[in-house]
């Protein structure tokens, strides 16, 4: 299976410079459906699903390869290489902000601008560092994830996966944007919420924009401030939007901030 179908990569837009959108933990590339189209007239817009999410190839999910964010960053580099992305813009939501950062360290020529929406280099408190969660709270989350399957059923999985050429079958099912094999969701959650990329922040060479929501329980303002301080030359914009998903709740504000940056 090619890299582009493995990650269900979608390319649109008429520009030459690439803008790559990456979704965070939870749903899929649909997270960008109100933001990405705004850039199609000026950019080559690329969106994809991380392996294990959305309409990616679930058979490509390997717990060892994706045991940390490097596995996902490697996929992103492969996608960028397959589509010949150079000096492009990367827009990553939530955990994908860090995935994009790691990818830019692996392939520095791929992106010269990173937009991080609700980034957090570490979710768990550590000494003086406040990530917003204790270790036991993250364990509680992992346990809680088993309580919600969101339209996922092992019996249905083959029908969903086996019909990549007939997406209408998948679309008929509700909650499909956030439908994931519960085992994979749990794995991605553990990798996400136990990640620690604080030391990588200072290595980034690309221009960086941090979009921080006013009231975000997952990436609180002090975490955004930490990223801003650790990345020399980064810009920090605090949005009026609340919650962790301004790309859905306040797309115009996000679009305006990205446009001003690029």
């Amino acid at each position, binding site marked *: 299976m090619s890299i582009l179908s493995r990650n269900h990569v979608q390319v649109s837009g008429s520009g030459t410079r690439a803008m790559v959108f990456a979704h965070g933990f939870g749903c899929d590339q649909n997270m960008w459906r109100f933001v990405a189209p705004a850039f199609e007239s000026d950019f080559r817009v690329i969106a994809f699903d991380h392996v294990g999410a959305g309409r990616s190839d679930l058979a490509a999910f390997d717990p060892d390869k994706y045991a940390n964010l490097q596995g996902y960053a490697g996929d992103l580099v492969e996608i960028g290489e397959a589509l010949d992305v150079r000096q492009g813009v990367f827009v990553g939501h939530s955990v994908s902000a860090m995935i994009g950062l790691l990818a830019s360290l692996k392939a520095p020529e791929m992106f010269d601008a990173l937009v991080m929406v609700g980034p957090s280099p570490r979710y768990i408190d550590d000494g003086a560092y406040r990530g917003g969660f204790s270790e036991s709270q993250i364990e509680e*989350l992992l346990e809680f994830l088993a309580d919600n399957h969101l339209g996922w059923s092992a019996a249905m999985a083959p029908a969903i996966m086996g019909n990549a050429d007939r997406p209408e079958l998948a679309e008929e099912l509700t909650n499909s944007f956030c439908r994931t094999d519960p085992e994979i969701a749990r794995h991605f959650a553990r990798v996400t919420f136990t990640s620690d990329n604080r030391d990588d922040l200072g290595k980034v060479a690309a221009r960086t924009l941090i979009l921080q929501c006013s009231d975000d329980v997952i990436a609180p303002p002090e975490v955004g401030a930490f990223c801003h301080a650790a990345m020399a030359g980064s810009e920090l914009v605090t949005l009026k939007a609340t919650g962790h998903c301004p790309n859905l709740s306040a797309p115009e504000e996000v679009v305006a901030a990205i446009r001003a940056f690029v």
Partner: protein
Amino acid sequence: MSDAAAPNVHEDLADLYETAPCGYLSITADGVIAKCNQTLLTWTGRSREDLVGSRFPALLSVGSRIYNETHLAPLLRMQGHVSEVALDILSHGGIKLPMLANAAEKRAEDGRLLFTRFTLLEASDRRRYEHDLIAARDRAVERARMGKAHEAAISSELEDERATASLRDQFIAVLGHDLRNPLAAIESGLHLLRKESLSAQGGRVTELMEGSIRRAARLVDDVMDLARIRLGGGIGIQRSRRMPVEPTLRQVVGEMLAISPGATIVFEAPPALEIEGDPARIGQLLSNLLGNAITHGDPGQPVQVSAGVEGGKFVLTVTNSGEPIPEQTMQHLFQPFFRGASRPSQQGLGLGLHIASEIARAHDGTLTASSAEWRTIFRFAMPL
């Protein structure tokens, strides 16, 4: 709607909202609780002042709070509604109350989000049941995994066992082969000595030595045959053209009589009977059966060897008198290295009958034993 059809009860909608058997919750676009019903207040033990105006995420357990941000809110925004989602609501005392939630957005005509409305149902029993199911599935997966590991361990043990057995068989083959040469050298030396003029004692000793060499050579041959059976998949025979079998059998009987002082053998076979087999191997088969009969049979009674045709088959029987073979022994009679427990003093590797049965098999024939009432019969039958 006719008045007659309407029940004579006036439902109070305000009361229905407040005391419905489910919790109601309305959240503003900014995530602030705008309204809730009495049922939810009762379940959570919270006051209306405490809840209304507070932030919705604060009402949720940590797991639910993250889940709300990563799944629930995005889904609501994308499809306008969500159903059958598990949420844990925190009571006044911080106790988690498992709930099942449906939610739908209420938008203004211009598309602006006004509220998100939640309907909450208590789901403690259901959640417990789901946890039981998940635990049962995990146990089943674990058992299946352990089953597989166990299988792998057994198959690896079996593999080791096979490798060891194969090594042992090769060792036997090499040992047997290498013993033959010094044995042949001793035998030819002895022949030279026997041609010299020896003292009476010298004659007796060399005679005993000849017998010993013969026995040793036989053991080596047996071992080599066994190795051939185990490593080569069968004893291997060289079938001749059709030829009379009687001379071969008669010669073997004569040899056995020569080395078995005191034994008597009654031999009968039609001189004209022809078979298509390996004469040397059939001779070996008879020799092994006779050796067995003389060793285990009643020394006072003759051993009978009889060859003929029965039902279109060549049949050779060797019959001895004496105590019958115990049932237990019968089952293992043709296995290699098996020696009947009855006479531990008898020397041998326990290969004679095994090799005989393999010779029978190589001739597409059978070797069977029957034993009853002071008579034991070994019967070899093969296609003519």
